């Protein structure tokens, strides 16, 4: 499609010769570093990722069992003031998500006050009656959120999707940074980039802070993975490693008398906090899918009894469901008392007849998504779709309108990216990671930038040919030591 109107985050609207003023130095670096040198560094980074085993499986692609996600050597940069505004919006959003979950599985004031139609909650399979009435420690449900953002202009950020279940990708944030520091040290001399390497410590602290009341002063925390065949296994083991806690598989855990135990060579150890990377459906065969072989039988009873904290809490799908998404501005307003600082992308709910008519009339312009789909599957990008695809979606929409939402195609911002034909703008999105613990909400100064490597493509999902970039957050000009979440964020790199 090659949308000329797209805002480039480094080059601005003016092209390579007329970059955004605060980023002129980066534009120079891009212009002056020989292409071959950039290509060499990129290859070195990808070799490292391959050796580390940072791979993912493409669903439905039997030939390519595991691939690495392509990496791009040109970083994406957030200015300090941009980041400050973004952080405020993220904190407000995540606070609202937690308040919503605590309310919807508790008193349900938001429904009593008529802010949401009750049927979109109660008839939604993401509302898990199995956790109704449970209140996790400190009322925190979404300890780790990945909020997917897109940008269309210097100050125009939109939330595309909330991820409040088990958002993945944080290992890319950390590994990409490590590769960049090694391969492009001059960038870290010239820019004061906020460090991201405190993430594992912050996550560990978050886990400890939400331990059950009876856990004692040194709660036992573990990461629960479905196993090494899982596409995100690298991330599971990476996080456990960098937090210095055990990585366990379901067979390592047993529940007895409503208490979760970890079987170790030295005997049984009581487990207090579990960062589980197993979906709700498979978590406990006694409560959810009985055919699940990945789960820990009885874990939900231990959770209901308040003897273990599950991170993130089961049942969170009701907060990041695409049908709920369209009500997020109302949800944020309801719990925060103010307007959402980060707006949603305009969303048409096809369950509403007028919206459906509008959507059917404009399919070639719109992006249509399955309410319960993810990973770029079951999605129509009107402007790049073939007429057959459009007609297929038209039929599907008419048959089951309640399963779809539609959004305008946004001119997603671009970032210069190394391609076979040299440096060229490519569309990006962004997933920052937001942690919520007993002492509040914190945004890690960085995140995962996904880039659509195909020219003109707006689909950034790794399963659909997307890649990743490092995301720099620049520190404020004034050299203030900024204390955040108990960690000093300034880090001097290089000289």
């Amino acid at each position: 499609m090659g949308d000329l109107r797209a805002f480039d985050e480094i080059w601005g609207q003016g092209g390579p010769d007329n970059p955004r003023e605060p980023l002129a130095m980066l534009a120079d670096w891009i212009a002056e570093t020989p292409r071959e040198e950039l290509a060499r560094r990129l290859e070195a980074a990808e070799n490292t990722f391959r050796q580390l085993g940072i791979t993912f499986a493409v669903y439905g692609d039997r030939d390519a069992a595991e691939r690495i996600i392509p990496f791009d050597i040109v970083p994406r940069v957030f200015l300090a003031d941009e980041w400050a505004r973004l952080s405020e919006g993220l904190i407000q959003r995540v606070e609202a998500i937690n308040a919503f979950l605590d309310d919807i599985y508790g008193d349900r004031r938001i429904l009593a006050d008529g802010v949401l139609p009750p049927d979109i909650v109660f008839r939604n399979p993401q509302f898990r009656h199995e956790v109704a009435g449970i209140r996790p420690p400190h009322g925190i449900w979404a300890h780790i959120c990945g909020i997917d953002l897109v940008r269309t202009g210097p100050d125009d950020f939109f939330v595309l999707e909330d991820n409040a279940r088990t958002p993945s990708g944080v290992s890319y944030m950390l590994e990409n940074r490590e590769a960049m520091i090694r391969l492009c040290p001059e960038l870290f001399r010239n820019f004061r980039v906020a460090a991201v390497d405190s993430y594992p410590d912050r996550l560990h602290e978050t886990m400890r802070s939400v331990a059950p009341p009876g856990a004692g002063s040194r709660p036992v925390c573990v990461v629960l993975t479905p196993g090494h065949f899982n596409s995100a296994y690298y991330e599971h083991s990476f996080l456990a490693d960098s937090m210095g806690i055990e990585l366990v598989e379901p067979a390592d855990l047993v529940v007895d008398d409503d208490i979760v135990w970890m079987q170790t060579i030295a005997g049984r150890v009581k487990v207090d906090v579990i960062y589980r990377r197993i979906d709700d459906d498979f978590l406990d065969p006694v409560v959810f899918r009985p055919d699940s072989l990945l789960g820990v039988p009885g874990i939900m009873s231990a959770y209901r009894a308040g003897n273990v904290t599950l991170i993130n809490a089961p049942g969170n799908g009701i907060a990041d469901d695409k049908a709920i998404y369209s009500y997020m501005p109302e949800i944020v307003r309801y719990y925060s008392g103010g307007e959402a600082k980060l707006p949603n992308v305009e969303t048409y709910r096809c369950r509403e007849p007028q919206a459906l008519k509008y959507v059917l009339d404009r399919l070639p312009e719109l992006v249509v998504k399955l309410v319960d789909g993810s990973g770029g599957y079951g999605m129509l990008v009107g402007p790049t779709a073939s007429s057959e695809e459009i007609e297929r979606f038209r039929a599907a929409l008419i048959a089951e309108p309640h399963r779809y939402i539609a959004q305008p195609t946004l001119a997603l911002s671009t970032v210069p990216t190394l391609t076979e034909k040299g440096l060229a703008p490519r569309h990006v999105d962004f997933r920052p990671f937001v942690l919520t613990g007993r002492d509040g909400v914190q945004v890690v100064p960085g995140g995962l930038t996904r880039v659509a490597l195909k020219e003109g493509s707006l689909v950034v999902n790794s399963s659909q040919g997307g890649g990743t970039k490092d995301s720099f957050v620049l520190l404020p000009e004034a050299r203030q030591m900024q204390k955040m979440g108990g960690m000093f964020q300034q880090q001097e790199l290089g000289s």
Partner: protein
Amino acid sequence: MRLIVEHRTRYRFSEPQTRLIQCLRMTPDDTDDQTVIGWSIDVDCDARLRESRDGLGNRQAMLYADGPIDGIEISVRGEVLTGDHGGVVRGTHEPLPPVFYLRETERTVAGAALSGFMVEALAGGADAAAIDAVTRAIHGRFKLASHVEELRDAAATFAAEAATGRELAQMLVAGLRAAEIPARYVSGYRQREGRACAPHGWVEAFAGAEGWIAVDPSAGGRIDERYVRVAIGLDTASVTPVAGSRLGPGEEMLDVALIVEQARGQ
């Protein structure tokens, strides 16, 4: 009526099991219709029981037992005083609103045939009279089977000529939901003359202003004082009296014996 329930569930395993975890939904609650005078769950091996209440308000007990276990027998014995309020359900724990019980599950997909039947039988109504009419219509349409190898889902049940009481109940639940009437499956006990019976299943449907009413399609009408209500759920799968997980190889054999009788001296 004073009812005595004796419900024995015995699992035998072809090879010893290392561990056993089971969720027992076998404990009735007091309602306006029933008062639990006494209730006990006994297990014939060294096991720990932990009681709680699930998200739908059911009482449940988690059972934890360590191996080696060749078999386990769970004996439930209790006494309940029941009354007859014409099937109107009152005094129950209701943590979730009626609209929740419109939710479809894998087993309660109605399908076109059942939906069409419902439209005709309800004749546009959604009140207690319409629910009674559709209960009678289902009762009249199916032969009652005492046993099926594997419980069928709602659509498959509707295509059959004969069905068990539990299948009919699940099917009615599906049909009512398809007609936008909140409905839920009830598992419990029913006293019948002259024979021991398996745990029974019936239906609670939400009749607007009249509230929840309980109907039994295998009897063709409202429930009465011969019923003991134990657990509610979205379908048969979610209220199985014993849902479990075992760690160990081999096969399991299940054997259930049930007596529901009126206490002597009445």
